[in-house]
């Protein structure tokens, strides 16, 4: 019996050690990536990053056109995604809960959340680029909207389902219509949650590269017309990182750092807000 107990304890010891090693390996890989990002990116940040456009190789410059392009297209994408996502999420939580159609929509929305983003790019190319014979900021924005919407839908539904049904009953008892209750009471009670939904969607699309490669294409000049090809941080990073020029590669690291910091920041804000809503 003693040997058996000892063997069990030994097995367990090995298991604990293996799990700890796995954690150490995983964390150190991730720390290494962040460290590389910081050490290569921070040095390149200067005043010109935000005030100058991308340079020709060998001359000084910044990333202004890419940053502005990214902001504009993410704005367009989020505008579309918030309207459709919140409405669809509301339908799932309030009207479609428990119906067969509701299950179908929820299932395909979940599939859409993890669908490869490059396929969304191909789809939007067929939808908006090929018929109109030109890459454009609009196409990029719409592609991003397709990526953000499923996330907004999912989060909205989760948040609205959490709202106490007493709220709905109280509103209806006062004679308000269902639509009125949802818009003026439920949405209001869930407004931080809805903001979180938007932030999570925004964090997801702000680093997306693949769907922009053949929708907005990229643009080496400053441009805020959505009907023209538009630069974006991820596509510029992609182009610069694969180039043979040191200064372009340095700018690519700065861009990567900016995106990573922005995404981390948005995610943290969303997380803090979400925690506050869950607190009774």
């Amino acid at each position: 019996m003693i040997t058996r107990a000892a063997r069990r304890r030994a097995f367990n010891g090995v298991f604990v050690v293996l799990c700890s090693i796995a954690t150490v390996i995983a964390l150190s890989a991730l720390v290494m990536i962040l460290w590389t990002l910081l050490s290569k990116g921070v040095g390149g940040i200067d005043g010109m990053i935000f005030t100058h456009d991308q340079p020709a190789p060998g001359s000084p410059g910044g990333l202004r056109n890419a940053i502005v392009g990214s902001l504009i297209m993410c704005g367009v994408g989020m505008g579309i995604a918030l309207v459709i996502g919140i409405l669809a999420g509301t339908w799932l939580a309030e009207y479609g809960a428990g119906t067969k159609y509701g299950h179908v929509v929820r299932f395909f929305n979940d599939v859409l959340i993890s669908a490869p983003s490059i396929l969304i790019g191909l789809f939007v190319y067929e939808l908006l680029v090929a018929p109109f014979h030109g890459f454009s900021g609009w196409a990029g924005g719409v592609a991003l909207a397709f990526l953000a919407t499923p996330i907004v839908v999912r989060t909205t539904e989760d948040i609205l389902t959490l709202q106490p049904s007493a709220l709905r009953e109280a509103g209806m008892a006062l004679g308000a219509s269902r639509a009125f209750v949802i818009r003026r009471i439920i949405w209001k009670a869930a407004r931080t949650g809805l903001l979180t939904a938007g932030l999570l969607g925004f964090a997801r699309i702000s680093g997306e590269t693949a769907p922009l490669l053949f929708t907005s294409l990229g643009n080496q000049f400053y441009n805020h017309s959505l009907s023209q090809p538009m630069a974006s941080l991820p596509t510029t990073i992609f182009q610069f990182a694969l180039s043979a020029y040191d200064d372009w590669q340095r700018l690519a690291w700065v861009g990567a750092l900016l995106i990573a910091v922005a995404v981390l920041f948005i995610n943290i804000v969303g997380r803090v807000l979400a925690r506050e809503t869950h607190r009774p």
Partner: protein
Amino acid sequence: MATTELASPRGAPPGHATGEIVFRFACASAATLLLVALAGVVISLFVGGLPAFRTFGIGFLTSTTWNPVTEVYGAAGPIAGTLITAFLSLLIALPLALGVSVFLVEFCPVKLSRPIAIAVELLAGIPSIVYGMWGLFVLAPWFAAHVQLPIVMSVTPGSWLDRFFAGTPNGANIFTASLILAVMILPYMAAVFRELFLTVPPQVREAAYGLGCTPFEVIKAVVIPYVRRGMIGVIMLGLGRALGETMAVTFIIGNAHGFPHSLFDSGSTIASTVANEFAEATTEMHTSALIALGFLLFVITFVVLAIARLLLREAKH
């Protein structure tokens, strides 16, 4: 469910009922739009890829020739690259993700467990292009100098080992691409595994401890059986992500169209091929072949993700 008679009593403003109908219709159409979007993806990819499917038939799937100059397209190379990198990365990431999540749920001091869990979740949100750049500038050169070169130098030419490890020692190959993919899906899988393990009721776990089980036995005999379906779901989600990941792979796989002949051979995936060539494709057949590739990728990931979601939904009930 409240009935509409209750919701619009007598005396309510006349606009009320119309407002209700309009709002409800708007919500329902937004939900329907999601299905339309998904259908649109399938149809547009299929229609766009049709010329390539028609011209090359089954050879599109089996041929390894991908030549934009002679306009002959066979996708066996990218398809194989996609499947090999995805499964290899899963093979690397799965044990690590399981280890991390078990460590966080069972062994880690509570004070440390929350910060690590949050850090892991935040890392899962880092854009893939960042991972790709790290792969290109840090992992590939290091791997070439410290792993690939010594291995290539030490194996006898012509042996089976040589065939297994053959390739240009520049660090851009199937294996490093899988490594980067693994690093990328690892935080994601670890975070979802942890959530899944936390759904096991504490009573069940405590009962097992009460019987004298060691933590290893609790995990093996109680926790894992309890969430088995969900675990397969998470694995499929990770696989789905690895299959469709574009940027992290494009940087480092070497972008060769042929069928990869060894672990250290450069190759390509469906996503990397599309990302590299689509904007530059000038002929209709080239464009169509790339869209046809996209359609194949859609079918593969759709099946994987659908299975994942079905299993995860059952796990939740």
